[in-house]
């Protein structure tokens, strides 16, 4: 397992804050400028970076990230190029920040899961999130990742029954990604009222940090979650900010959300 992720969460905790896992799409608007977005998010206070690798058929994503995938694919953002051209640059500019890749299982399978795990480790990737790979299908890929010390971060959904959620949490690598709403990625005005209970349940079972994601877009939606989770993931809101107003806007939004994460 990668120790880097645990350390980043511990550091945020020691400062009395929930961790911010900040997502952006590699290659949006192009490969070099997406590096600027990632670096800006770290300047804004992001504790972990989630590097999106585009897939042509993103069934877990809402319109904002779907559109970003289309732009990234047009800019030539393949997994190989993200690992070769984006990740090393982000690593160089933000050496303290753990990096997690988020993509779809077909993209990893096309490279070969072993080959991917090896390359990912060499480039300094701490973990990987594959939203279309439920536990039943993940054993083979997880073994390949474990061998290289790349964490396969599992997801837990609002529809997941409690016993299954506990099993996912117990068995997790890196952190547990609790999907806050039954739905696709995207900003929501309100989060479900039972989310805090769900986070408490997962946290009790998990030996790694627990984060809430999907629908969180600002300090207000993040604030109530810090009592129940170790951090939050923010995606669509950052992608939207970076797309319309550039890296500085993503940095600003990270700083705002970080204020909401103070305990």
């Amino acid at each position, binding site marked *: 397992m990668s120790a880097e992720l645990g350390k980043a969460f511990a550091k945020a905790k020691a400062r009395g804050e929930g961790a911010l896992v900040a997502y952006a799409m590699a290659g949006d608007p192009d490969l070099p400028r997406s590096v600027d977005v990632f670096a800006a998010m770290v300047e804004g206070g992001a504790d972990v970076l989630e590097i999106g690798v585009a*897939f042509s058929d993103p*069934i877990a994503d*809402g319109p904002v990230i779907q559109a970003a995938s289309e732009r990234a694919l047009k800019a030539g953002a393949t997994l190989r190029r993200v690992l070769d051209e984006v990740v090393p640059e982000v690593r160089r500019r933000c050496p303290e920040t753990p990096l997690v890749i988020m993509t779809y299982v*077909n993209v990893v*399978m096309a490279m070969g899961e072993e080959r991917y795990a090896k390359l990912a480790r060499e480039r300094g990737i701490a973990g990987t999130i594959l939203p279309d790979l439920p536990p039943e299908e993940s054993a*083979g890929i997880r073994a390949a990742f474990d061998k290289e010390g790349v964490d396969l971060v599992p*997801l837990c*959904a609002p529809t997941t029954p409690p016993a299954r959620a506990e099993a996912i949490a117990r068995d997790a690598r890196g952190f547990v990604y609790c999907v806050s709403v*039954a*739905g696709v990625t995207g900003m929501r005005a309100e989060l479900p009222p039972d989310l805090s209970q769900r986070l408490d349940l997962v946290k009790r079972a998990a030996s790694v940090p627990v984060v809430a994601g999907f629908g969180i877009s600002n300090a207000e939606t993040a604030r109530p979650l810090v009592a129940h989770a170790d951090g939050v993931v923010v995606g669509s809101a950052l992608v939207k900010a970076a797309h319309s107003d550039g890296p500085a806007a993503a940095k600003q939004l990270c700083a705002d959300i970080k204020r909401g994460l103070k305990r």
Partner: protein
Amino acid sequence: MTTDTAVGRFGRYGGRYVPETLVPALLELEEAYAKAQADASFNEEVTRVLREFVGRPTTLTPAHRLTESWGGANVWLKREDLAHTGAHKINNTVGQVLLARRMGKKRIIAETGAGQHGVATATACALFGLPCEVFMGALDVERQALNVFRMRALGAVVRPVESGSRTLKDAMNEAMRVWVSQVQDTYYVIGSAAGPHPYPTIVRDFQSVIGREIRTQTQAAIGRLPDAIIACVGGGSNAIGALHPFIGDTSVRLVGVEAAGHGLDSGQHGASLTLGTEGVLHGSRSLVLQDEHGQIQEAHSISAGLDYPGVGPELAHLAKTGRMEVRTATDDEALAAFYEVARTEGILPALETSHAFAAARALARDLGKGKQLVINCSGRGDKDVATISARGVPPATGVKS
């Protein structure tokens, strides 16, 4: 670990690659389907609706003039075009909508390519009184205007999908995204033997009525099983339905025909069994058209129902193990076959079905005289008249103008 013997697997293919949000719904569906299957009253109801409403059994028509003109095997047509709504798709939607009702689901969603599955779903929903939304690629909405009207007339909402290639694969992405958001009370009726487990099994079972009827009908007509059965392959539901009951009968050649579009070397086709590589699309591992980076490629076919870059996992398995032979037909070959069948048999086949006819001629000759060939006539061509007539109609035959 994914093994060859795991549930929902056909050899290496199949599985359940979906967001965690959907997994409990798929487990619930798997369980509900197993219970329904074990319940005689459910099966009786499906059979009764197929008889009273759909018009089953569909006939097995001897194609005398095609047989004569091709000069090979005796040709028989399994007439799914005569099923209510004009295609095999209704066999599956009646079964799935009855299952949804049994599960207490409040609304139905579906994706559609040619519109036949959308019409069949809208029809079953009208029959059983459930609200229905159909996702359809915006390009297909243009290509299949008649079916868009039919769905709306039946009370369904048609939602054009503007993303990606604006065809079937994008409609399926959108249906899955919407399903993820409304999974508690919504049933997703998948239209082909594709998607995450248990859909490929459920759809295959409901469509297998085609093959079971072919079995009894050929026994009655010729006193034995046919020598070959041929069907077109989009996602694969009419093919697996016609072929599955014969998998154990090694004397019967099973043949699937894919869309070669502008040609297999043109990069514009729907031939995922022929040229696809292993990958995950829409929840199952199968053969898909993709680039070296795992990005799904856009398929092309003149027929919206074959314009799909994936294929059901069971057909991928049958093709890879050699039990099913795979052939292809181009857009032009399908069009030529459309007119040939229209003018020799008095049947306007769907453009999808026309692909099966286009490849059947060579197969009939391969088989030779005295052999028996069944062509699965998956649907009728009314929905395609705009596409076909836009290319001009060849002059009348045998009449002085």
